């Protein structure tokens, strides 16, 4: 086996040094009663060329933007990724290291994460960001739990317009902690219903969680949500579904959010059938000790030279055990590095330009689709790069007809929103050319809708 260097002679010599006669003797502590008495039933091993063939055969049976025009979004976005990103994260000094427990030989990872924390603070308008969470959904769940710790209250209000899969994860995490998760409705314009929220707010509510942008691609009135939540002593959690939007939208921090939990997949990470992605998590400095996850801090070495270390670890599981703020240990380090490289390359201008193109192309698509007979755009509130389309014909048939023409038209909303059974979610990014949008419009106009 090419990954294992031992020759027969090495093994014999090593066994001799240990003082045993066989490999078998090394396992004496495992009782015979629990031993496996047959070989594992696994497919025969593949040589590298055979493995590559097997993988390519699997790859050939999936739809991608190479063979389909895709308008799928809903929490995972196809954005341009500069070639330098993968080149840099493929430096194996980065990807074959682990958590920077030994700072003197981990300064590369540590400085990069410190830069990631800074970039996330700048994007979100918050004081402090951690080294990453598993994804946007689990970051949102951890934000809910942090709000519970801060307020000592037991109820979490979640906007129905928050990504439904994120809502589900929040519910899973709260499941056995004696917390209620209560939904807040959305209004006719696609934004969280402020009246419904006001009616549900009381002294039991720890957190209000809303998407920014929300699942319908709509920009919430975050300032109003923050005022309402904070007026009742609750924390506002902004769940950023699409990070690129922060290139243009006012930052959640500026609008008064207490915690920002978001998905950073759009920052240079391939959609990769759902992961690995990177959750980002930002808060106010006064609440830092209630935060989950790893934090990197600046310090100096014995000679007074600047360096970086893991810090405020007394919040974490390896020190606090059952009293820790979270059980998270390994997070999404390499994906945080990816985001850092991506955001450095795009920079101040690039992120704004990319966000602007998303906005413009989605607006153009909205306009083109809105003209088609049988197509309706139910939500009028301003949006970013996604929007809801309602069709006269059943969604299933519409999407199937589009698929026949090589188009992945969008994500059906019915399974998550019975009241939107006749609608689907369309995402348009800078990767779509005008012609791609016109292909979708033509297909819908030509009978699909």
């Amino acid at each position: 086996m090419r990954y294992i260097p031992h020759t027969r002679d090495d093994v014999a010599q090593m066994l001799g040094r240990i003082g045993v006669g066989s490999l078998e003797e090394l396992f004496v502590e495992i009782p015979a009663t629990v031993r496996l008495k047959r070989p594992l039933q696994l497919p025969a091993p593949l040589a590298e060329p055979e493995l590559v063939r097997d993988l390519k055969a699997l790859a050939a049976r999936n739809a991608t933007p190479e063979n389909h025009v895709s308008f799928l979004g809903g929490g995972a976005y196809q954005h341009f990724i500069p070639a330098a990103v993968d080149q840099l994260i493929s430096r194996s000094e980065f990807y074959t290291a682990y958590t920077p427990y030994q700072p003197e030989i981990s300064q590369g990872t540590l400085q990069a994460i410190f830069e990631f924390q800074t970039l996330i603070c700048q994007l979100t308008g918050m004081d402090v960001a951690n080294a990453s969470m598993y994804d946007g959904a689990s970051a949102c769940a951890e934000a809910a739990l942090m709000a519970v710790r801060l307020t000592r209250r037991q109820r979490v209000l979640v906007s129905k317009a928050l990504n439904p899969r994120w809502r589900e994860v929040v519910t899973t995490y709260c499941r056995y902690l004696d917390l209620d998760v209560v939904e807040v409705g959305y209004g006719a314009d696609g934004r969280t219903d402020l009246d419904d929220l006001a009616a549900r707010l009381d002294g039991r509510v720890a957190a209000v969680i809303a998407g920014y942008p929300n699942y319908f691609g709509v920009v919430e009135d975050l300032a109003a949500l923050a005022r309402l939540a904070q007026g009742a002593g609750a924390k506002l959690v902004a769940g950023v579904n699409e990070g690129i939007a922060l290139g243009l939208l006012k930052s959640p921090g500026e609008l008064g959010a207490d915690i920002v939990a978001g998905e950073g997949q759009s920052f240079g990470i391939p959609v990769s059938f759902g992961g690995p992605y990177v959750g980002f998590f930002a808060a106010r400095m006064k609440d830092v000790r209630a935060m989950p996850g790893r934090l990197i801090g600046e310090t100096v070495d014995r000679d007074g030279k600047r360096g970086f270390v893991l810090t405020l670890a007394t919040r974490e599981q390896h020190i606090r055990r059952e009293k820790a703020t979270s059980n998270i240990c390994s997070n999404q380090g390499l994906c945080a590095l990816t985001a850092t490289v991506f955001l450095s390359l795009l920079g101040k201008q690039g992120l704004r330009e990319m966000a602007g193109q998303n906005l413009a192309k989605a607006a153009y698509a909205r306009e083109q689709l809105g003209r088609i007979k049988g197509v309706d755009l139910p939500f009028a509130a301003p949006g970013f790069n996604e929007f809801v389309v309602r069709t006269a014909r059943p969604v299933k048939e519409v999407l199937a007809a589009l698929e026949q023409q090589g188009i992945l038209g969008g994500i059906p909303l019915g399974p998550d929103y019975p009241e939107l059974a006749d609608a689907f979610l369309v995402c348009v990014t800078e990767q779509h050319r005008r012609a791609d949008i016109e292909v979708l419009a033509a297909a819908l106009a030509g009978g699909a809708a």
Partner: protein
Amino acid sequence: MIVGTSGLVLNEKLLFEHSDAGRKGYSLPALDVPATELPDGLCRQEIAGFPELSEVDVVRHFTRLSTWNYGVDSGFYPLGSCTMKYNPKVNELAARLPGLADVHPATPDHLAQGALEMMFRLQEALAEISGFGAVTLQPAAGAQGELTGMLVVRAWHEARGSKRRKVLIPDTAHGTNPATAALAGFDVVPIASEGVLTLAEVEAHMTDEVAALMVTNPNTLGLFETNIAAICEVVHARGGLVYCDGANLNALLGIARPGDMGIDVMHFNLHKTFATPHGGGGPGSGPVGVSAALAPFLPGPWVIQDGDRYRFAGSSESIGRMLAFHGNFGIMLRAYAYIRSMGAAGLKHATEMAVLNANYVRARLEGGYHLPYATRSLHEVVFSDRDLPNDCHTLDVAKRLIDYGYHPPTIYFPLVVKGSIMIEPTETESQETLDEFCDAMLAIAKEAEMNPDLLHAAPVRTRVRRLDETAAARQPRLRWEGVGEKG
């Protein structure tokens, strides 16, 4: 040969200190639709302090940072409990094939058959390797796998009307175990071990309020829990379940299966046992295997085979999702590639060589360092600093090892050994590497006697020396603050 030496190391500022107004490191096509603006009041100002760099600036920045790191590809990384084995390069290619990396998670099942079939095959392989009835691939890391497993335990109890709230956790356990139990709403009851758990200790604590026992097997001392079958029987007889932290599965591949020992739930760490890279702190992947009785409670959806097609399915009893999508697919692909490359015999060989290596290191260092437990080790071995003279401690040994060119072992864990030095060589290291490492360890023990200053001053060959962690925590500086100024 001493591996560690010093050479030219380049300094590098923070990204933000490099930035120059007007520079950019990207290009986008010209906008081919009419430009639009956000309505008033929604649009932000330009982001103060955000970097402005050319592509060259960025490439040089991160390349320099990478040279300040130490990875498995740099050298020996015997970080106990973390299984820092070599990360095969073809697996990186696997995760980057466009037909896999560019599949959107909301793609209809019938257009993602290749992705689904890979997941199905991996579920099946992990079930066979561990002896469990069902596997979910969803959790993102070991700790999330633990949480998934403990929520499943809780759901199983609730489905039977049982409100048990206690979980027994041995003193050798990793910090994630108690933290996870708390997050799943349980009260932690610590129990003592004597190297391994005794049946008497478990019997003494196993009441009808106990929902589960969380064990790690082999445990964090690298010792097989020899009483595991009897322990599982006692826990089951009194209505509880047994959770196994599978971080140490690299000691058991093809030798014994947790599912056959009576264990009900276990998480895998694909980033340990199955050679996926650790990424500087993730992403990992923490699938969970369960006995058939617990399968309906797993987080959905999982992949099923339906004739010659594959599709996602779920259950109404599921605890619900743990992540927005299907888990860390890119990591699953690497683990799949690894399992297909190794086959059954290869995996067993890996375990045998991992155990051989740990015992070889143990044999070479015994006498030089204090060995607290005489029981035969499996894949890792724990020493302590008890016998070191002249105020030399585990931390000093670790820092001095860096000067010799090694990543230190895990230190001060497990907590049951004072000053523990936990060495896990893994199977991918040669006898030659182990000999050089052991020579360095023994030389350091000698230095502790003859010239302890060398240990106290270490490391001296790195770009930075020991860092002031107390100051970092007392006055936290968690982001670059100098908006607008240049460093």
